[in-house]
C-alpha cells in the first residue's frame, strides 16, 4: 500500500513537472501571438472560431495542432530517414527532462510523508539541468544533417556553434550561484535563497549574483535560439535546420523552442529569483523583518510557494517574450563574439569576484 503510494507520489511529481512544462508551452503559442500583437499595437490572431465563438483567439493553438497533425509529413528523398524522424523527438525530449530537477515547492508533508516538490531529487541537480540542455543541441544537429539540405546543414551548424558558446557562459555563470549557495542541488540553492541579507533583503540570486543573472539570462535566450539569437532558424528569412520539416515534426521543433523557454524561465527562477520562495514566508508562515508574524497552515504555505513559483516563471516568460519581440537579430559573428568574448570572460570574472567576496566576507570559505 505504501509502496503503491510511493509510486503514486513519484508519478504525481513527475506528472506535475511534465504537465506544467507541456501546458505552459502549449499556451505560450497563444501568449506569444497575443503579447506580441498588443506590444505592436495590433490585435493578434483571433479568427479561429467554433460556432462563431472566438474566445480571444484561444482556438488558434488548437487549430494549429489540428493543422500540424493533418499536414503532409514530408521527408526529403535523400534524407537520412532514421535521424530525420528522431531529431524532433530528441529536441523536445531533452527540453522536457531538463525540467525534472527544478523544484516547484518546498517539501510537502502529508500523512507523515515528506514529499519534495520536485520531479527528481538529484544532488547534482544544477549539473543535470545543464547536461540536458547541452544535449538539446543534438536534436538540432541531427535535423540539420539528416535533411540533406544545405540550408538545413548550415542552420544546424550555426545552432550548434551558438548553443556551445551559450552553454559555456551558462555553465560558468551558474558556478557563481553554486559557490554562493554551496550546493549543486537545486532544492538546496532555492532554500538558501530564503535567507535574508542584512536582515531584510531576501537573499535571492539576483541580489547576490547580479552579474551572473545578466549573463545567465542572455546566454539562456541564446540557448533557446530565439530572437535576438535566432540565426540558426531566422523564421522570417534565413530558415534553418528545420527547413525540410512539416506537420507535427515541425510542430515539435516549434514546441521545443517554447519548452526550452519554459525551462530557462524555471531555471532562472530557481537560481536567481528565489524559486518557490515568497519573501518572509517560512515554513510556519510569514515572518516579517520588522518582527510581525503571520502563522499559516502548512498546506497553505506550500500552495503559496507553488503559486509563487508559477508567478515567477510566468513573469520571466513574459520578460523573455518581451525581449524576443523587441530586439533585432544579432549577426552570426556578433553573437559568436558576444558569447566568447563577452559572456564567457564575464562569467569567469564573476566566478573570481564571487570567490573573492566569499573569501573576504568569510561567507562559506
Amino acid at each position, binding site marked *: 500500500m505504501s509502496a503503491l503510494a510511493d509510486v503514486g507520489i513519484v508519478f504525481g511529481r513527475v506528472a506535475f513537472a511534465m504537465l506544467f512544462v507541456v501546458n505552459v508551452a502549449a499556451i505560450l503559442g497563444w501568449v506569444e501571438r497575443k503579447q506580441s500583437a*498588443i506590444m505592436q499595437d495590433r490585435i493578434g490572431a483571433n479568427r479561429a472560431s467554433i460556432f462563431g465563438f472566438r474566445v480571444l483567439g484561444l482556438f488558434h493553438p488548437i487549430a494549429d495542432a489540428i493543422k500540424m497533425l493533418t499536414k503532409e509529413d514530408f521527408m526529403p528523398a535523400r534524407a537520412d530517414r532514421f535521424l530525420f524522424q528522431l531529431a524532433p523527438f530528441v529536441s523536445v525530449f531533452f527540453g522536457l527532462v531538463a525540467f525534472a530537477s527544478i523544484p516547484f515547492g518546498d517539501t510537502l508533508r502529508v500523512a507523515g510523508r515528506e514529499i519534495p516538490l520536485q520531479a527528481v531529487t538529484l544532488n547534482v541537480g544544477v549539473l543535470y539541468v545543464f547536461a540536458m540542455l547541452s544535449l538539446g543541441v543534438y536534436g538540432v544537429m541531427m535535423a540539420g544533417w539528416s535533411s540533406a539540405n544545405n540550408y538545413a546543414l548550415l542552420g544546424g551548424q550555426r545552432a550548434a556553434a551558438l548553443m556551445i558558446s551559450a552553454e559555456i557562459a551558462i555553465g560558468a555563470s551558474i558556478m557563481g550561484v553554486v559557490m554562493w549557495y554551496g550546493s549543486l542541488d537545486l532544492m538546496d540553492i532555492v532554500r538558501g535563497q530564503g535567507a535574508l541579507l542584512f536582515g531584510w533583503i531576501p537573499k535571492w540570486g539576483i541580489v547576490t549574483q547580479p552579474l551572473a543573472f545578466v549573463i545567465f539570462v542572455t546566454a539562456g535566450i541564446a540557448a533557446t535560439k530565439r530572437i535576438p539569437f535566432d540565426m540558426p532558424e531566422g523564421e522570417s528569412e534565413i530558415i534553418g535546420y528545420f527547413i525540410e520539416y512539416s506537420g507535427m515534426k515541425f510542430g515539435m521543433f516549434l514546441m521545443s523552442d517554447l519548452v526550452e523557454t519554459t525551462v530557462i524561465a524555471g531555471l532562472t527562477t530557481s537560481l536567481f529569483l528565489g524559486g518557490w520562495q515568497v519573501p518572509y514566508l517560512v515554513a510556519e508562515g510569514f515572518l516579517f523583518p520588522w518582527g510581525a508574524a503571520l502563522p499559516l497552515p502548512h498546506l497553505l504555505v506550500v500552495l503559496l510557494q507553488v503559486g509563487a513559483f508559477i508567478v515567477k516563471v510566468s513573469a520571466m516568460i513574459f520578460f523573455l517574450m518581451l525581449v524576443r519581440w*523587441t*530586439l533585432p537579430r544579432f549577426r552570426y559573428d556578433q553573437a559568436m563574439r558576444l558569447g566568447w568574448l563577452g559572456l564567457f570572460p564575464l562569467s569567469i570574472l564573476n566566478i573570481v569576484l564571487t570567490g573573492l567576496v566569499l573569501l573576504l566576507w568569510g561567507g562559506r570559505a
Partner: protein
Amino acid sequence: MRVLQRFYLIEVMSGVALTAAHFFRNMSGHVRHSLGQKGARGAVTIQYPEERRPYSPRLRSLHRLVQREDGSPRCVACMMCETVCPAHCIYIVATEHPNPEIEKMPARFDIDVGKCVFCGYCVEACPEDAIRMDTGILEFASYSRRGMVYTKEALLALQPAGPDGRPQSTIPIPADREP
C-alpha cells in the same frame, strides 16, 4: 554614453521598456474596453480580409499577358523574361507566327507562381510591354503545386486592376487551372 551603448544592456532595457509600455497601455485599454468602458480602446489594426487598404499602383501583383487588338498575346516569345527571371519560373516555347512581320509568338507561356519571387524583372525586361504585374490579385493560393502554374490562356484572360487597385478579374478556381 558611447561606452554605455557598447554594453547593450542599458539600450536593451530602454527598448524593452518601450515595448512593455506599449503592451501595458494597450492591455489596459483592451481590458477596460471589455469591462464596458467605451472610451478606452487598445490599438486596433486593419482587419485584413474585410478591411483593405488601397494598393499602391506600383504594387507587383499576379502577372498577366497583354493582348493585341485581335486578342492574341503581344508576347513575341523573345525569352527575355525567362532569361532574367531569378526564380526560373517562366516557361516559354516559341513558334513561328503566321505573319512574317511578327517574328514569333509563344506556343506555351506558363508562369509557375509558386516559384515566382515577384521581383518584377520580367516586366522590366519585356521589350514589348507584353507582361505586366498590375492585376491587383494577391490571393492565389492553390491546393496543388500544379494549380500554381498559370498558362498562357489564363494569363491572357486577366485584366488590370481598377483605379482603386482592386482586382478587376477573378482568377479561375485552382482546380480548373490544371494545365
